[in-house]
């Protein structure tokens, strides 16, 4: 696992915020993450839907395959201080193109586009203002881990407490917070003072 020990997330350049007006007139924020992967959409699709592959990089465990519309799947948040299991029904599954389901209250909308020999992967997910920079940093790291997995060099998923252990975590979430114009989260407590 020497690769994992050497891993450091790069600059905060994977996520942006899309701001829309909801029907109630309130501003609605969506976190948009884009990652260019040097692997085919078919291969990326497997990593997004197959529970054994999700286990290698995603922040949740799935108890079934997410690749079919109507599939009912339980998602367990990994590393949370108490068990958090949410059930979802897959609402869209166009293999190697598009995938939609919910993680708790979050909409999860994935798009896969052929991009040269690889795939441009986009995730749209609605996450509250307060936690959006942490969400961006978390997914940023997950996508790096996904990239290694697809390259045949899995380094094991880095989520929850493992993600916070990286010295770079406060830097990454603070960079995103600055870009999004939100307060830098004080998590882990006093991280910004270290």
């Amino acid at each position, binding site marked *: 696992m020497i690769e994992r020990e050497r891993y450091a997330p790069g600059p905060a350049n994977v996520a942006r915020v899309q701001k829309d007006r909801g029907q109630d007139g309130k501003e609605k924020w969506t976190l948009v993450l884009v990652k260019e992967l040097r692997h085919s959409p078919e291969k990326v699709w497997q990593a997004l839907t197959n529970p054994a592959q999700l286990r290698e990089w995603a*922040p*949740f465990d799935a108890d079934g395959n997410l690749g079919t519309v109507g599939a009912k799947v339980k998602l367990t*948040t990994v*590393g*949370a*201080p*108490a*068990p*958090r299991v*949410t059930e979802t029904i897959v609402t869209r599954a166009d293999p190697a193109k598009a995938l939609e389901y919910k*993680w*708790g*209250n*979050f909409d999860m909308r994935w798009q896969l586009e052929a991009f040269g020999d690889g795939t441009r992967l986009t995730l749209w997910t609605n996450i*509250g203002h*307060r*936690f959006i920079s*942490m969400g961006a940093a*978390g997914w940023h790291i997950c996508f790096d881990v996904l990239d290694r997995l697809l390259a045949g060099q899995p380094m094991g998923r880095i*989520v*929850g407490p493992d993600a916070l252990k990286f010295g770079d975590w406060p830097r990454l979430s603070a960079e995103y917070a600055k870009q999004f114009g939100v307060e830098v*989260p004080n*998590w882990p*407590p006093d991280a910004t003072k270290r």
Partner: protein
Amino acid sequence: MKIKLSSVYVNDQEKALRFYTEVLGFAKKTDFSQGPYRWLTVTSPEEPNGTELQLALNNNSAAKTYQQAIFQQNQPAAMFLTDDIKGDYERIKARGAEFTMPPTDVTASTIAMVKDTCGNLIQLTQLARW
């Protein structure tokens, strides 16, 4: 070992945060989320480093059943101590909270019971002084 934290189950964490801070007057202490999980605590401004109260989502059937059963039996899910129960009662009532029991003398204390809007009764207690 120390007792630094206690928990109540709530059926809506955002609503709970509003009630426990804006209505009861506590202050938010820790708030972080990991995916759909959210760790949320409040603490008394009189004791910022004192015991924290975790507002835990009742997201499993055992928690829901427990919460509803004790509510139906008029049992408080948590109890807070005050030195001025009459003043607190007026202040909290003025902010729109619904009391199921006004300050009432019982053995060794005066108690009142208020709904927390998230599925619980909360008891306020002022110990009698002799």
